[in-house]
């Protein structure tokens, strides 16, 4: 696919702001004339797909999240897209634009309808490969062409009506319009419809007796089923069980049906001659660019479908700003998306948390009571930055996140009995390797390291490691039981998990940027059940 453009990369930003009016769009189309490349990457040279999940996926529970996102879309092989964080803000914003367009429910519905049809096209073409019977084979080929044409025409129609703003969709729409006007598509459309119409007019009779059957033309015989229904009508008792056998779609064709079809073809020779001609002339009709779009657009659909369940539970998602600057990073009302997924169908609420880092702060030290959501917070931090780098909306009301080069995680692992070095040494080796590879642009997430050593050792080692991290000046979240790490320098801030003192069994999962203040709720037991005089009156009234 040839792609040539003189448009400089820097001009993109001004373009973004010009989207408000159609006039601006026309100007843009004329002056730049951007050929459509991909709905995921604006330029062909940005294109990449990793086949392997990043190393930190399991620690951040992103493996569960991505598997859930792509689970119902296996045939598109979407995981590589989700394994490939983007290195530039421009592509991230390119995706935001497409994603925002797709958030219009009508456009989303039309794209999904298109995808459904493309699935059918592929299914029918696969059937054609398998079938032996001549006219069945050609019949399904015709069917595939009909669905394909319909899919293309409907998509273009709806794209023209839609309020599209993204560079990706605008370029694709132009591509589609040109394609539809091509001779190749127009002839496919006209011929397939003509042949189908004439085959649909065929009506015949089959007479089945013991061990043989006959085929002839239909001669206005009357429907006996209707008659029988009338006789027994008076016993109708509301809805009845449906005993009709559900006919299988595209079922394997057998020699009897093939024989019947052959007789029918003899009864109606013209209609079948037209089908023969169509099959010869219209081979290989599916367009390559459209096929690629059909796969890539599923990246957005899969993600939006996934987050829709969360949104319906009142959880927010936002389009984060991303940058390489560490001056200010924050997120409001974010949550651990993997944990939220498991809570989705339970009564338990999803707890949201905030954080912010302002110059010169780099390191969030999370401490406080166990079971209070510290690990969850650390995961959340990693997930947010990762998802932001995919070009996806992230959990939360508003966020500014970091355009990292790499993420490193170190989470407590099960002790490996085959490892003779012992856990402490193991931990230290892993951390040394991380620090070796990390750059000032990396994100580091440490969770309860040195938990298996003495407190004295842990304090010493932690301070040593902390000094190195501060030296690297990278962004870090460190979950630890060692409070003093949080006040080592102006680069560190302290966040703590909280519990209700009266009932420590109730987990708040709230992580706050301050020491625990022991906030208590002295609720009377009746109040808890909403059974005071006023509460009851209020409840019965409503």
């Amino acid at each position: 696919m040839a792609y040539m453009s003189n448009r400089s990369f820097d001009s993109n930003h001004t373009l973004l702001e010009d989207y408000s009016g159609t006039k601006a769009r026309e100007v843009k189309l004329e002056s730049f004339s951007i050929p459509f490349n991909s709905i995921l990457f604006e330029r062909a040279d940005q294109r990449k797909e990793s086949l392997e999940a990043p190393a930190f996926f399991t620690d951040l529970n992103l493996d569960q999240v991505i598997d859930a996102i792509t689970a119902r879309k296996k045939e598109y092989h979407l995981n590589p897209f989700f394994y490939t964080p983007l290195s530039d803000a421009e592509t991230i914003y390119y995706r935001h634009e497409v994603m925002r367009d797709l958030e219009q429910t009508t456009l989303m519905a039309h794209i999904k309808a298109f995808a459904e049809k493309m699935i059918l096209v592929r299914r029918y073409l696969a059937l054609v490969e398998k079938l032996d019977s001549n006219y069945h084979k050609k019949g399904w080929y015709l069917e595939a062409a009909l669905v394909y044409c319909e899919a293309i025409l409907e998509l273009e129609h709806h794209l023209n009506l839609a309020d599209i703003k993204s560079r990706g969709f605008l370029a694709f729409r132009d591509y589609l319009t040109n394609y539809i006007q091509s001779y190749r598509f127009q002839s496919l459309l006209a011929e397939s419809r003509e042949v189908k119409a004439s085959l649909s007019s065929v009506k015949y009779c089959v007479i089945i007796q013991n061990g043989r059957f006959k085929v002839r033309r239909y001669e206005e015989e009357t429907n006996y089923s209707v008659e029988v229904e009338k006789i027994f009508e008076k016993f109708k008792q509301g809805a009845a069980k449906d005993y009709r056998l559900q006919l299988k779609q595209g079922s394997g064709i057998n020699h009897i049906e093939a024989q019947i079809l052959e007789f029918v073809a003899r009864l109606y020779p013209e209609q079948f001659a037209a089908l023969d001609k169509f099959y010869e002339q219209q081979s290989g009709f599916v367009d390559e660019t459209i096929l690629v779009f059909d796969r890539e657009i599923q990246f957005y659909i899969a993600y939006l479908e996934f987050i829709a369940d969360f949104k319906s539970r009142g959880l927010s998602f936002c389009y984060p700003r991303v940058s390489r600057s560490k001056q200010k990073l924050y997120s409001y009302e974010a949550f651990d998306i993997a944990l939220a997924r498991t809570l989705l169908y339970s009564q338990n609420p999803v707890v949201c948390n905030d954080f912010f880092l302002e110059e010169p702060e780099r390191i969030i030290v999370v401490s406080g009571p166990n079971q209070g959501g510290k690990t969850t917070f650390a995961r959340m931090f990693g997930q947010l930055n990762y998802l932001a780098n995919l070009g996806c909306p992230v959990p939360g009301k508003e966020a500014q996140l970091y355009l990292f080069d790499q993420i490193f995680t170190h989470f407590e692992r099960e002790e490996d009995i085959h490892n003779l070095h012992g856990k402490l040494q193991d931990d230290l080796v892993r951390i040394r390797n991380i620090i070796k590879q990390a750059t000032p642009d990396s994100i580091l997430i440490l969770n309860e390291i040195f938990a298996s050593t003495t407190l004295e050792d842990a304090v010493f080692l932690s301070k040593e490691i902390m000094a190195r991290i501060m030296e690297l000046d990278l962004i870090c979240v460190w979950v630890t039981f060692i409070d003093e790490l949080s006040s080592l320098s102006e680069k560190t801030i302290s966040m703590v998990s909280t519990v209700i003192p009266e009932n420590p069994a109730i987990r708040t999962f709230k992580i706050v940027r301050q020491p625990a203040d022991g906030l208590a709720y002295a609720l009377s037991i009746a109040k808890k059940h909403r059974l005071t005089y006023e509460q009851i009156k209020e409840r019965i009234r409503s």
Partner: protein
Amino acid sequence: MKVHLMYPDRDFEPNQNLPSNEAALIQDLELNTLFEAMAQGDKYLFDVVRQVVLSSLDSPEIIRYRQEILQDCLKHPDVVRQIYQIPIQSVENKQRHWMGIFTRYPSGILSGARQMLEMFIDLLKVLKQIANENAEQFESRGFRRFFAMIQQELDDDYFAVVTHHLKELKFQRGVLLSAELGKGNEGTNYILCRTNRQNRNWLERIVGRKSPVYTYTLHPRDDRGAQVLGDLKDRGVNLVANAVAQSADHIDSFFNALRLELAFYIGCLNLYEQLAQLEEPIAFPFPAPAEERRLSFTRLYDVALALTMKQKVVGNDVNADNKDLVFITGANQGGKSTFLRSIGLAQMMMQCGMFVPALSFHANIGKRIFTHYKREEDAQMESGKFDEELGRMSDIIDDITPDSIVLFNESFAATNEREGSEIAQQIVRALLEMRIKVFYVTHLYALANGFYERQMENALFLRAERKANGERTFRLIEGKPLQTSFGKDVYTKIFGISQ
């Protein structure tokens, strides 16, 4: 054809949701004892009466509709039991001859359904016969409509037409299908047809026609081909099999409805016969609308107790018209719980259209009926128990509406008296203001006396009677709450220590 013996204008829905407090009602009011007496060991009857009793009506009109039908049943028990046998016979026939629609193939469905229809037609003839002979003697709106419908819908001509078609549907001459080309040129829209000319056999007609007819004869060992041909035939008879099977289902469900709706009355007949043996009275109650406050009765007894003891039990007379609140206090084992249960049971029985265990009974309908009883000790700590009680109360508040009834039995006593009384007082006060009728058995003196001292017009205070010598009559008399519940009496009786 509709049975309509439970409602004047609709079917009884056997699977409708029971009230959320179903389990509590059954446990607290000993409803299983009632159900067992009505069912007499018949599981089907048990399930039906359970469903009917728990699905309280809130319309006096429908209650009277059922009362009329039940009165007809009490007058003609033999005819009613005879009609009840017809759907039972249908069930037995199906079981004995393995009838039914078991297969997933249309020709199998067709032949199964045809057989069932033949059997049903015979039973409908029996029903018609009973209607002809007995319709005149029945007076209730429900039965008069039912018999009239049978006589009108099932005339002799109709029986003849049905019999003719049941024979046609054997397709002894082969099957003629029309079809079209569907997706991928697969045959579709297979429709079973009748030939246009009646006088000639359509097979003969084909031989003499001009347009081409192509014939294919299967190889005798072509089992797969025969199978496919069978499938094709199945597609053709798909719709007709559906029609016949649905008809069979409809008649089957007519019989099921007949069985279902009569089962409730059969249960009532069973109960009536047992109470008659105990020489206990029954009365058809007068239901007043839910907005009114009516409750007056004579010789109201606890039917569950009578059935369990198999003897006559003590009854009570009370007039609580215009009362929203009835407190029952007094001696332990003085009949308080029995009395509360007798009210709950009578209320439930009235609200499903049954007679009640009393000489007379007037009461307003409760939109919903709730019980809140102290539960037996369990492994939980005391604080946990109080928590549990309040949890159940909160569930009631979730569901309750004005003009409902709540029966409290020793509720909120799982904490100290002062706290328990305070919480109970708040709850009762709020309920009364939301127009909810409250019956409260308690030994929380602070609670009962608190309300007594307010001298409310709409409150009634009853006390379990205890004679001077400590003897209990198990009767309830009007009286102010007393400071002690005489627990010592019970202790003395059990341990046999003289005072």
